[in-house]
């Protein structure tokens, strides 16, 4: 299965700043996903990022707040913009090869906003 590396693994940021999270995969994959997991909660899909097309955002998430890039089949970034304490969460990327295939996750980025 694919190995996913996320950077940074954790960060503490000031209110109003932005942070870009990187997701690197060791093989070419079709679909990449970005999730948010708030403390003690389950995973909520932010957006789906397929190479060569604009990311598809879920209800409640907008491109201005969470811009995503997918420049090739092994890499994606998620930016959390103009951060507030409510953005404190774990952000995870995952990859998949189709609707009936399992997803493989990175270990996440633990983000705290002061």
């Amino acid at each position, binding site marked *: 299965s694919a190995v996913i590396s996320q950077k940074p693994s954790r960060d503490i940021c000031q209110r109003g700043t932005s942070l870009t999270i990187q997701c690197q995969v060791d093989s070419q994959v079709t679909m990449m996903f970005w999730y948010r997991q708030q403390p003690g909660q389950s995973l909520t899909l932010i957006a789906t990022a397929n190479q060569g097309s604009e990311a598809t955002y879920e209800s409640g998430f907008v491109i201005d707040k969470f811009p995503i890039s997918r420049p090739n089949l092994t890499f994606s970034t998620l930016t959390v913009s103009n951060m507030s304490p409510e953005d404190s969460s774990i952000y995870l990327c995952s990859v*998949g090869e189709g609707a009936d295939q399992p997803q493989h996750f990175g270990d996440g980025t633990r983000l705290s906003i002061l």
Partner: protein
Amino acid sequence: SQKIEQNSEALNIQEGKTATLTCNYTNYSPAYLQWYRQDPGRGPVFLLLIRENEKEKRKERLKVTFDTTLKQSLFHITASQPADSATYLCALLIYNQGGKLIFGQGTELSVKP
């Protein structure tokens, strides 16, 4: 409204017993149901996938059942071990929503020696 519900209480069992975790859903028509394991500080790890036309799937000590009439999946770990202690997540894949997975809130399992 659409919901996925897993055992909200943590499940504590004795080593060697069978752990049974429940995933119920309402107002979804999933094509597939998947189970993941998540350890503290780590991302979820895929365990099993079961399709809507399958009743049961097994992998080593793991067994998953899927009842689309009851809208329920059961996840069993037989001969449980302390190393099985983790949070277990069920996730639905919906036909008309691409590859999007919708996760339950997870059940924390603790296996005591």
